[in-house]
């Protein structure tokens, strides 16, 4: 076992740290929510230029062919910087699912566009009335039509859809199983309601009314589709947890700095033991959260059940840590903590979103419990 960064990872981290420090100032972060489609084009171009978008893309598609551990290293920096670019939607989720496209040319072409920043992908899976995709069969229907399919249904809270060029749609096939389809974001028959999220990212509800796609748009169906979706979700969860760890570390640092500066009752409030112990608790939680990201990463190639259990255990712990750290960070900042003008409130909002995305604490507690108590092979 080796928990230290490779030279390449250290370089990645250093360059990310530099860009983040320059490009993600408080002003930039406050500016984010004013961008209608949620995408800061300038930042996205930088991501492409630095090779970040190519990181886990296969080499024959023009990517760097790196592993998820490298994405994790980068993600801690993105988390610290409060970057809400559609990195996970496009590169981690989109990249993974599109990687299963049968048509090699089409696959490499799109993945190549992902790597250059030209394509952005959003996953349209959740539907109204569901809770973290607990709804079983999709209400969205894929009906054979022409030489392909017509997709009809409603997708809710499609993360990063406003800036996407492509969407991946889950839908029920004729045989009742699930299919995953690739469609252009601007395909005819798609209408939307878009909105901002609490952390400055953007999402859409998509209304699909007989959206016509050809046969090649079906990426996978049946258990292959389920597997692909489950893998992509767990990978996304890991990348987002790494962002959460970075955000927590950032939150801790600004909080420590603040209480060393701020004076009350004639001394820096950092001298008060009660506040020191709050910071100690924040540190403990953050340290444990990082351990859990490593633990989840270590189970990436385990059996699906073991991988899911590991991701769920990590999601539970990281989510809980995120709450403790972000809430404490505000408390330590006093009244300034609840203003938009101190970065700690932005850490709070981002960590709230990161706890919820791809399953909240409650969702993963239940999934972990299934692993603990209900597995036939246990």
């Amino acid at each position, binding site marked *: 076992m080796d928990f230290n960064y490779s030279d390449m990872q250290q370089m990645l981290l250093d360059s990310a740290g530099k860009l983040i420090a320059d490009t993600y100032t408080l002003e930039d972060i406050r500016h984010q929510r004013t961008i209608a489609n949620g995408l800061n084009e300038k930042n996205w171009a930088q991501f492409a230029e630095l090779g970040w978008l190519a990181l886990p893309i296969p080499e024959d598609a023009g990517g760097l062919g790196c592993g998820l551990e490298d994405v994790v290293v980068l993600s801690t920096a993105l988390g610290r910087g409060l970057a809400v670019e559609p990195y996970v939607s496009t590169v981690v989720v989109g990249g993974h699912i599109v990687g299963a496209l049968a048509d090699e040319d089409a696959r490499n072409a799109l993945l190549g566009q992902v790597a250059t920043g030209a394509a952005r992908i959003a996953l349209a899976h959740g539907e109204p009335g569901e*809770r973290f995709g607990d709804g079983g069969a999709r209400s969205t229907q894929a009906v054979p039509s022409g030489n392909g399919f017509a997709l009809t249904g409603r997708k*809710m809270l499609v993360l990063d859809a406003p800036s996407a060029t492509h969407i991946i749609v889950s839908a029920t096939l004729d045989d009742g199983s699930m299919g995953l389809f690739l469609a252009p974001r601007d395909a005819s028959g798609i209408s939307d309601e878009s909105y901002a999220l609490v952390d400055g990212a953007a999402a859409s509800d998509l209304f699909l009314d007989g959206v016509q796609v050809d046969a090649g748009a079906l990426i996978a169906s049946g258990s292959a589709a389920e597997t692909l979706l489950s893998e992509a979700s767990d990978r996304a969860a890991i990348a987002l947890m790494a962002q959460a760890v970075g955000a927590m570390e950032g939150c801790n640092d600004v909080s420590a700095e603040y209480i060393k500066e701020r004076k009350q009752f004639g001394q820096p409030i950092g001298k008060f033991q009660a506040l020191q112990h709050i910071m100690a608790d924040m540190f403990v939680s953050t340290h444990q959260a990082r351990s859990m990201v490593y633990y989840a990463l270590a189970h990436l190639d385990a059996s699906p059940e073991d991988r899911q259990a590991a991701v769920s255990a990590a999601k539970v712990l990281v989510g809980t840590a995120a709450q403790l750290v972000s809430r404490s960070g505000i408390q330590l900042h006093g009244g300034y903590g609840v203003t938009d003008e101190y970065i700690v409130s932005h850490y709070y909002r981002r960590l709230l979103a990161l706890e919820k995305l791809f399953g909240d*604490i409650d969702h993963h507690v239940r999934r972990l419990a299934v692993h603990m108590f209900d597995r036939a092979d246990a």
Partner: protein
Amino acid sequence: MHFELDPELQAFREEVRAFVRDNLPEDMKARQMAAGSIFCSHDDERAWAKILAKKGWQVYSWPVELGGCGWNAMKSFVFEDELYKGFAPPLSFNTLHMIGPIIYKLGSQEQKDHFLPLMRHGDVSWAQGFSEPGSGSDLASLRTRADLVGDKYVINGQKIWTSGAHEADWGFFLVKTDTTCKPQLGMSFLLVDMKTPGITVRTIPQINNDEHHLCEVFLENVEVPAGNLIGEAGKGWTYAKMLLEGERTGSSYIFWNKREMRRLLDMARAEKLNGNPIAQDPAFRARLAAIQAELTALEWSVLRVLADEEFTYGTAAASSVLKVRGSELQHAITEAQVDLIGEKSLRVYSVHDLLSDAGTLWPDHVVNRTNMALLTRAATIFGGAKQVQKNIIAKAAFGL
């Protein structure tokens, strides 16, 4: 020892309920319901005050001869409980419990004649200027000063967290009139017309993107007639302490907590988990039942204070309990509201358009819950941070 509420209060409760039902404008109620806030807009506050004034309930807690109602603590409790339950805009704390009492107890005849009728009719709104950027929980370190020059005070300094200062008619400020003695003896209480030249107000954008409540007030050579001094110069600290100590149960936010708990239970019945109402899931039930028990305890701890229980320890400890647990409950309830709606909590709704549509696919009950939860993080900070309350308790209860 007996624990029955006066039976007459049940009839009164229904009277208040009927009044709210019949007199609270629907749109005002809808705004308050969506916001779920301890604040309301300036317009709603003024409009609701006029409605209450007509009924004679606007300054209910004042002495009868000044237009108050002469109710005992329990009756007042029922009154406020029902207003909150009915989603009426919150009453003006400043008018009822801060500057109102200060003026009728300590004000000059001119001050009384001018301000009390205005307040009774809901025709004046106030900004409270205590806190400063350098002093949060530490009032002794205030630095804004007022120098007596002729028959005027000239104020220079800066206040912060001044709710509604950008819309208020008048402010009451704690200022240093004597810098040669220790801070507690050099403070005075001044009334300031917010339109006086030299005053600049900046609204502070909040974590929920609201810019309508908290303000910074910059005072640069602001000239105020000497007659605007309340009581004696140098006694401001005493007056401020008197005000803060007189309000023993308000920091519990008991009415707000009860109302938002009801909302939470309704949400649990409406939201589903694997096809069943979340209200039927043992894990969520356990979480909500624990909150319910804490809420009930808070309410009965409020009642103990209102009924003047003779505590064996300093009453400050009993009051600080209300602040600590009241603010923790505000957190627990809003956190649970957010968690109940799951990923739907991530969508942002405008705090400036409270009646905005939830969205085609979205249930109405999600609107604004996250905004409220965000703002509620302040509950354990304002009015004496939780850590300060614990210092107080350790001292008052155990002499530590």
